[in-house]
């Protein structure tokens, strides 16, 4: 017999302006949802920072603060995974060939650590190109995992 609780999910979705205020807003929503889901303080900090990095990518590098472009932000929680999706409407970037920020030649670069930090803080990160425009980042934290 199917266990209905395994399929139960809660979703929050927002279409946010391409502003730095939206970065704070998304972080607050994600951390609030993660807290409700039972993550501890350490995990809340990591989730918040990962969301911040995603949103900065979307607002600054993706949509370039364009007031006509939105960032689609959603949080989905089910019994196994806590999933955050951030999608912009920008030109995209070559996510398959990002420079390694830990390489000696890159250590003193002033940028290029965002995606690396997201990967460090989350259990999974998926990146995909959207048609006709945009990049979607999917951040996953396993429920009950440390």
């Amino acid at each position, binding site marked *: 017999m199917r266990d209905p609780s395994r399929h139960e999910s809660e979703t929050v979705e927002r279409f946010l302006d391409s502003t730095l205020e939206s970065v704070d807003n998304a972080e607050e929503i994600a951390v609030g949802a993660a807290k409700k889901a039972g993550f501890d303080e350490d995990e809340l900090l990591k989730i918040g920072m990962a969301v*911040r990095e995603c949103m900065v990518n979307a607002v600054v590098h993706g949509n370039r603060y364009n007031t006509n472009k939105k960032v689609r932000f959603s949080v989905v929680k089910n019994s196994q995974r806590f999933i955050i999706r951030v999608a912009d409407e920008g030109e995209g970037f070559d996510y398959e060939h990002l420079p390694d920020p*830990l390489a000696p030649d890159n250590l003193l670069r*002033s940028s290029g650590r965002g995606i690396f930090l997201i990967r460090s803080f989350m259990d999974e990160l998926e990146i995909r190109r959207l048609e006709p425009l945009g990049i979607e980042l999917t951040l996953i934290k396993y429920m009950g995992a440390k």
Partner: protein
Amino acid sequence: MSVKLSTRQVGDVSVVDVAGRITLGEGSSALRDALRDMVSKNQKKILLNLGEVSYIDSSGIGELVSGFTTVANSGGQLKLLNLTKRVKDLLQITKLYTVFDVHEDEAGAIRSFA
């Protein structure tokens, strides 16, 4: 709370007490402006006290690195004091902890510039 910076002079060392959040926007630009201003005034010994920094993102880390290289390129030294666990963890993850000269004691940090 965004970032709050206050500068004091201890001998020939400029100590910048930083409090709050160093994130993209006001926080990181305030730090950048402060460091550039000190470099333009030919201050060569700069100690950033990060003891009251509650949060830092990749942009903030970028500003620390940028400040470090700007000061070094002008013939000076930028050192860090009183890292919180969060900042220390981030500098370790990004392999920057060994790039910076990090101190836990202000008097010792001041002496290290000599």
